[in-house]
């Protein structure tokens, strides 16, 4: 029999890991060895406590290893190791600054291990680690502790929410922030809360309350952390969620089953199979689980008015505030966001903007965006009017750059979308003139303003600018000026569209069955409703995979002599008819009454299913698009985009800047732009030739100019001859037209700018 090989440590009997392994297998038999080692730990601890800052690792077995050993087997000897966690905590709390780093890490790790073995509870652990995290000067320890704290909070919330623990920690964080508002320690509270918010572990108002305190702190970094959370925390959370759901790749069960049939059957493979089945089941369950209600942080705030006022007074109005411009802009964004979202009233906020509204102001577009964001329909127009006048005077003039003018017009439009009454007629008429501008950004911005007021208050526009729909609406009284603070009587927007659609759908179905078009068939209705309850089933059945192409509407309307028009056609028919002939000699009050009747009938007699609501949204959108059909495609697309933008979303500086970017391109960007489309310069070829080759390879056709250049000479002779044959009058007309165009400054003219 061969000699047993023994390791160097085993020879001297100092192999703790070996002993640990043995103990874990049979704790009772090794009781004596354990007690000896535990005694050793105690004596080493005594030595350590006698002078904690010296390194006592000159023996074979260091204190660190002993701690590790005891922590690993503590669950086998619960009675004997009762004081062990307490002792570790004490060492860490008292000596964390002077401990040797490895020993320190080991103690933290052991405490977490004890927590995992359920020897101590989370609250105890976190209450030990958190004060150290805040107070320690060592960066490595801080990162370690931060990791461990987060990890522990995540594990203890993984199965179900541990409300008790969360509450304790939240209270600790809150106290940390409120106890000393000037210190930077609060940053840890912000960091932890933000991380947990991102992972959807904390989604309650208490976490929001912590962040609220952070944004009202006195330290710049803490303020920045708090404010950034409100501005971006929810987006971060959504991104994280998408990321997580995107990560899971689907398991092909069929393939696995097939493999299991063919391949060699081993225990391991059976286990993998089992796990895969488990995962698929879990995924399915997760998919079917109801979506958790996650309110955004801004909605969970208690007393948003007080918060917004405090923020504004403390950080913006206060002349002693030490924030720099960037931080101030962040705070301003938050305040304006709150004001816009909760429709708060802070009158002094608007006068605060005045001094920042000049083109020279750095990042002025952010200020403009904030101003627009802070506007809502309950802001008194008197407060906004001077601001709009200032923007118009400073930004929108012939003398200013086109980008500046575009930004100013965009800002004015965004403000007026939210409060149309802030505009007066002379100013609006002046601004609308810019739609003739040669700069595209300015032109678009002015057109946007025009189309806005065609809907909101066409009275302010000149008669010829109002457009057909608006002027007819004014004449018939359908469009009336809104008063300040006026609200629509309650109702569901587009409900009548849904009703019409339902009616037509029913008719169609009855027609299919050969029944008379009118008449009631309640049982049929109810069964149909049941079918349509689920969103998914409905969407797959009713549209049948066909996409509603709007540009065909005109054609379809013309052939209305069809006996059984499809649902789509009927719907479009009605909406277009409603749009184009609103000038019925009907008294508006009567129409309104009828409308109200309709609303009450559908919304109060039936329960709207999710499928119904989805259809309603679809109808609403298509109606709005159909209304804007007069405009070109781009406008329609923009309209769609504006509708898609949710009221909760923030307005950004990019949206104010519009097409034109205010900042110039850098040199690299310019070079890249110049290089673009020119291909590589390996062979000597003209730019034109390279472009041509590229277009050919993409399968694109030639331009008219190119075609004419390549045209056979003999074929052009006829036209050339005709030019000589022109009469004097014709020649004069051509020449005069040329002079005229030259005076105007090209085909589109120099009007505006």
């Amino acid at each position, binding site marked *: 029999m061969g000699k047993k090989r023994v390791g160097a440590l085993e020879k*001297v*009997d*100092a*192999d*703790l890991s070996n*002993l640990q392994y043995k103990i874990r297998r049979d704790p*009772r*038999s090794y*009781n*004596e060895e354990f*007690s*000896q*080692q535990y*005694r*050793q730990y*105690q*004596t*080493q601890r*005594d*030595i350590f406590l*006698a002078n904690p800052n010296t390194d*006592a690792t*000159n*023996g*074979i*077995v260091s204190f660190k290893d002993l701690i590790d050993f005891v922590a690993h087997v503590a669950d086998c000897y619960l009675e004997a190791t009762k004081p062990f966690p307490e002792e570790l905590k004490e060492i860490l709390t008292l000596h964390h600054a002077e401990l040797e780093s490895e020993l320190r890490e080991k103690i933290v790790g052991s405490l977490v291990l004890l927590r995992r073995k359920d020897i101590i509870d989370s609250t105890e652990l976190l209450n030990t680690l958190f004060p150290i995290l805040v107070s320690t000067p060592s960066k490595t320890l801080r990162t370690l502790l931060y990791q461990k704290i987060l990890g522990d909070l995540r594990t203890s919330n993984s199965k179900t929410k541990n409300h008790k623990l969360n509450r304790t920690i939240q209270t600790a964080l809150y106290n940390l922030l409120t106890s000393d508002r000037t210190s930077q320690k609060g940053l840890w509270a912000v960091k932890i809360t933000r991380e947990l918010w991102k992972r959807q572990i904390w989604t309650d108002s208490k976490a929001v309350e912590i962040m609220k305190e952070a944004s009202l702190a006195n330290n710049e970094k803490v303020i920045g952390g708090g404010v950034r959370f409100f501005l971006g925390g929810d987006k971060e959370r959504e991104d994280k969620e998408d990321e997580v759901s995107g990560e899971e790749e689907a398991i092909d069960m069929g393939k696995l089953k097939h493999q299991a049939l063919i391949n060699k059957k081993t225990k391991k493979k059976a286990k993998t199979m089992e796990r895969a089945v488990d995962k698929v089941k879990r995924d399915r369950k997760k998919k079917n689980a109801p979506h958790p209600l996650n309110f955004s942080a801004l909605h969970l705030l208690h007393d948003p008015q007080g918060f917004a006022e405090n923020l504004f007074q403390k950080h913006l109005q206060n002349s002693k505030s030490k924030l720099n411009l960037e931080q101030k802009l962040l705070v301003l964004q938050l305040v304006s966001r709150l004001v816009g979202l909760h429709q708060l009233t802070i009158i002094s906020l608007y006068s605060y903007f005045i001094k920042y509204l000049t083109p020279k102001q750095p990042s002025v577009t952010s200020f403009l965006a904030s101003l627009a964001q802070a506007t809502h329909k309950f802001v008194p127009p008197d407060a906004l009017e001077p601001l709009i006048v200032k923007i118009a005077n400073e930004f929108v003039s012939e003398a200013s750059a086109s980008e500046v003018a575009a930004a100013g017009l965009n800002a004015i439009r965004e403000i007026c979308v939210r409060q149309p009454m802030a505009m007066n007629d002379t100013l609006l008429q002046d601004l609308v003139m810019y739609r003739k501008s040669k700069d595209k950004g300015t032109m678009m911005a002015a057109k946007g303003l025009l189309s806005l007021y065609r809907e909101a208050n066409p009275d302010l526009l000149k008669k010829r600018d109002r457009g057909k729909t608006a002027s007819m609406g004014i004449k018939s009284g359908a469009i009336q000026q809104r008063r300040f603070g006026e609200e629509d009587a309650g109702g569901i927007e587009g409900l009548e569209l849904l009703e019409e659609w339902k009616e037509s759908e029913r008719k169609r179905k009855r027609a299919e069955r050969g029944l008379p078009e009118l008449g009631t068939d309640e049982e049929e209705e109810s069964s149909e409703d049941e079918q349509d309850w689920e969103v998914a089933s409905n969407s797959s059945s009713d549209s049948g995979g066909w996409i509603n192409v709007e540009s065909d509407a005109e054609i379809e309307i013309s052939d209305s002599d069809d006996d059984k028009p499809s649902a789509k056609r009927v719907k479009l028919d009605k909406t277009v008819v409603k749009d184009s002939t609103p000038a019925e000699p009907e008294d508006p009050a009567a129409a309104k009454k009828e409308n109200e009747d309709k609303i009450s009938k559908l919304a109060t007699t039936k329960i709207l299913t999710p499928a119904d609501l989805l259809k309603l949204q679809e109808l609403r959108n298509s109606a709005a698009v159909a209304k804007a059909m007069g405009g070109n495609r781009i406008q329609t697309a923009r309209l769609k985009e504006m509708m898609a933008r949710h009221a909760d979303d923030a307005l950004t500086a990019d949206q104010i800047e519009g097409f034109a970017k205010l900042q110039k391109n850098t040199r690299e960007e310019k070079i890249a732009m110049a290089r673009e489309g020119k291909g590589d310069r390996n062979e000597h070829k003209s730019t034109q030739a390279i472009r041509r080759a590229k277009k050919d390879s993409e399968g694109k056709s030639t331009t008219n100019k190119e075609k004419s250049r390549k045209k056979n000479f003999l074929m052009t002779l006829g036209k050339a001859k005709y030019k000589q044959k022109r009469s004097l009058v014709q020649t004069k007309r051509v020449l005069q037209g040329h002079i005229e165009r030259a005076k105007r400054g090209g085909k589109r003219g120099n009007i505006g700018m």
Partner: protein
Amino acid sequence: MGSSMKKKRDKKKDFQKPKLRLGKAKAKADNFTDTSFKAKAIIVNQQSLSTSAPSSALQFSHFLSLASSSKSETQRRDALAYLTSQISTKPVNEPLPIPATVILPKLLSLLLDGSTSVRTNLLKLLALLPSGDISAHAETALLYIRAGMTHLAADIRRDALLALEWLLTSTSSNTNDPVVSCPGGWVKTLNCFMTMLGWAASKEPTSWTSASKASFDKTGKMFPQQLTVLAHFIRAGLEEDQTGSIHYSGFGFFQLENRHMMMPSVPNAFAHLNLFGRCRDEEGEMYVDREDRQRVFHRVFMDAVEKGIERAKKEAGEAGRAGAVLQKVLHDGMADFDGSD
């Protein structure tokens, strides 16, 4: 034309082969760089030069630091050997180059050293230190001795016992031996003995297979020695304080309390009040009086020790004899204890 001819010649020169001649140095290469330099003095880093040899005191401290903090075990061992020879060869009346109170704290941690030769040398060195200075460091020494006694390695445990024996003999001349009366000295050390001997487990009922493995494995050879040291220790703790009683009788009845009025002869005389330290638990408490020690011993250890002695005596041989000695010591020590707490 002349210049062009010159250029041609110059060019030609590049391709001509240099003629080598015997006894002449080889021509330098074109790109040769002269790297020689002149300097008035050259300073080489990390070299200490002095005209006189280091003094013995300096060398002593150097070797002391080498012994306590060197990474290599041979270096530690040699340094210890050097220190030992220095101390042993010095004249009797001459004091140590560095006082023992400085030497001790530096060297005590070597009790846990992994190398056997280092520990042996350390014990030799310790034995040479004057016994008067040791009692002040009894508490620190005990910390390391206890750590050694519970160590995973058997050799270290054995050497720790030797160290304890040394400590007991060198401090036994004191009244109120600091080894047993310092904080933690009595209960904690006895605890260590119990785990070492495997007697601690007898508190809770276990199966007979797990009982007293100490005599089976290779620590069995150490068993008699352990019993002897334990007997020594218990004698130090429980023995009637003869010097003290003589002391009392020397003075008259009126001067009975005289001792308390005089200047204390021991360092830190009020340590038992624990004015500045952390709170102590039962194990870490100071047991200054013999009666205190008896009471604690009776309450915590008496049963286990008696059972252990019974078992040791059954083993007969050296272990049995050591057990008998221990029993006698115990009997003497606890003779006047009335058993009432």
